[in-house]
């Protein structure tokens, strides 16, 4: 459904570009959820904005690579160009639903506006479609909620409204950028369940961006781990959490508190992620990596197959079961 190949996003002058996303490739099948996971500044949001055609102007730009949706090349097309070309079948939801909703317009009108971008319907039919969308995201009393204002809804309900608006285009691809980070865990759990149901029911490909390894484990079918602008490991969720191959993936998992082991200090990752623009020779993770040897500091790491559709960008991938 979505295929991204060798995507590189850069900032800075043309002559001396700084890559903030480098050579990123992945694909997502209909009904599949790909989790893109990494810490702040790793380039996961920039990747999603580049895929959506929402990179801010002036600023980061796609330097090379291709973004295809259903075989059609949409690389670098603006959202309005995609709508006109009939290739707009992708939608995005963000972390903070309140900043994406207009505070002085009713929920129903805002969803209707999204519907009208894609479909020409009578006023009554538009409203009916808006009500359907609210029911699809399981908002109770949809009829009543159509006339509510955003401030009258809770954070979880607002995120449901955002998902309803995203579904107005009947998208083949939904990009969700940390959609549950601002929500409470019990509400997060419900929203994750909703996204899982929608992706299966609508055969929608989902790119789910998060920093939370727990969320990725429970939601995603496949996982891509990003570090310093590169995808360092890709695998099915079950393989990744059972046999993490890249030392960074392993280190991230080790940082998490494990239930039942109290009093011990948590493992940490020494050092800091490189600033974008640092000239890197060899592997970006080498300075922090427990397994790094001379070759890691001098040569860019290869993308190794470490299992069935399980790749790691590492010369010395970790073997064996995860500790946890």
């Amino acid at each position, binding site marked *: 459904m979505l295929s991204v190949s060798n995507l590189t996003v850069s900032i800075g002058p043309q002559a001396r570009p700084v890559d903030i996303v480098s050579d990123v490739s992945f694909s997502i099948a209909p009904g599949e959820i790909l989790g893109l996971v990494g810490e702040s500044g790793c380039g996961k949001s920039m990747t999603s904005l580049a895929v959506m055609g929402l990179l801010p102007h002036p600023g980061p730009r796609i330097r090379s690579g291709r973004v295809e949706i259903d075989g059609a090349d949409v690389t670098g097309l603006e959202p309005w160009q995609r709508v006109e070309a009939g290739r707009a079948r992708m939608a995005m939801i963000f972390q903070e639903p309140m900043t994406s909703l207009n505070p002085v317009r009713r929920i129903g009108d805002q969803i209707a506006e999204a519907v009208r971008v894609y479909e020409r319907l009578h006023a009554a039919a538009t409203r009916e479609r808006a009500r359907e969308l609210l029911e699809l995201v399981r908002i109770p009393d949809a009829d009543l909620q159509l006339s509510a204002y955003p401030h009258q809804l809770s954070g979880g309900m607002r995120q449901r409204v955002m998902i309803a608006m995203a579904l107005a285009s009947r998208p083949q691809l939904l990009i969700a950028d940390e959609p549950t980070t601002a929500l409470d865990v019990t509400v997060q759990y419900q929203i994750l369940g909703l996204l899982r149901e929608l992706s299966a029911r609508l055969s929608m490909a989902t790119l789910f961006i998060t920093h939370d390894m727990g969320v990725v484990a*429970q939601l995603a079918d496949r996982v891509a781990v990003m570090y310093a602008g590169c995808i360092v490991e890709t695998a099915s969720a079950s393989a990744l959490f059972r046999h993490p191959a890249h030392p960074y993936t392993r280190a991230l998992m080790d940082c998490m508190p494990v239930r039942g082991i109290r009093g011990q200090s948590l493992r940490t990752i020494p050092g800091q992620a490189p600033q974008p623009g640092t000239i890197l020779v060899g592997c970006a993770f080498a300075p922090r990596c427990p397994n790094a040897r001379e070759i890691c500091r001098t040569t860019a790491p290869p993308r190794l197959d470490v299992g069935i559709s399980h790749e790691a960008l590492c010369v010395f991938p970790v073997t064996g079961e995860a500790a946890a």
Partner: protein
Amino acid sequence: MTGTALLEVENLHTSFAVRRSGRTRRVAAVDGVSLSLADGEVLGLVGESGCGKTTVGRSIMHLARPQSGRVMFRGVDLLAARGMRERDLRLNIRMVFQDPYASLNPRRTIGDSVAEAGDINRAFKDSADRRHRVEATLASVGLDPSLAARFPHELSGGQRQRVGIARAILPTPSIIIADEPVSALDVSVQAQVVNLLMELREKLGLSMIFISHDLGVIGHVSDRIAVMYMGRIVESGETEAILARPAHPYTKALLAAVPQPDASLRIAGAMPASEPPSQFAALDGCAYAPRCPLASERCRIETPQLRLWGQTQRLLACHNV
């Protein structure tokens, strides 16, 4: 528990006046909370946003004014103390805040921010003593003492939170109230800051109230856990016991919702939407009843009180467990 308690909070009520639709109403953020903290203990206060956990911390610090209740520190009521005496007493309890970006003055150097409590209380003999104390404190939180001359914008999030901790420990307090101290940090940095807090606890013999929505972190650092919902503690007890055998239906729901890094625990599909009621809704009975699978008629009429439950010092507020 009484007698040995370092800090004892009794029946704390804190409410705020809120104007809504032209009428002023009071919202009870903390509605009769009692808790105790033993010497050297870490108490985890967990709950979702709006449950009142931060207001409990702020009420103890007197950053919020409780309507009633007592906060006893070593047998002295902090809420009744005034003037110099209050100021001296309050150096014993210090707070670490969530957002290390917002809690540091951007126009003051790190050194000045760290020294602030000492400056106000004239704790330094001279400027050499001040510099020495600031540098030693920065070193004890794992920062390079030369950062004292820098400004907050030059530091990373993790470094800033270390500064937040340094400011708190400079006057050698006995209690730290840490309000979501790692929630704004990346997981690898979060682990470093959690380790630092636990290290300081050992080294300085600190007691701690650790406030967080994150049961993973709370479970890792706390000796005891108190779970809050809508201004009340609904369950409290020893960490291992609560995590292994949660008794209150809300604690169970909360534990089940924490995402685990285990791909075999898949989220199945949609479930009915159920969220905390508005704080303005006047509720009779148990605040969790509208979401509770065990709720009975009694729950909607009579508010359950905390009572001893089971053998281990577990307190539980539920009619139906």
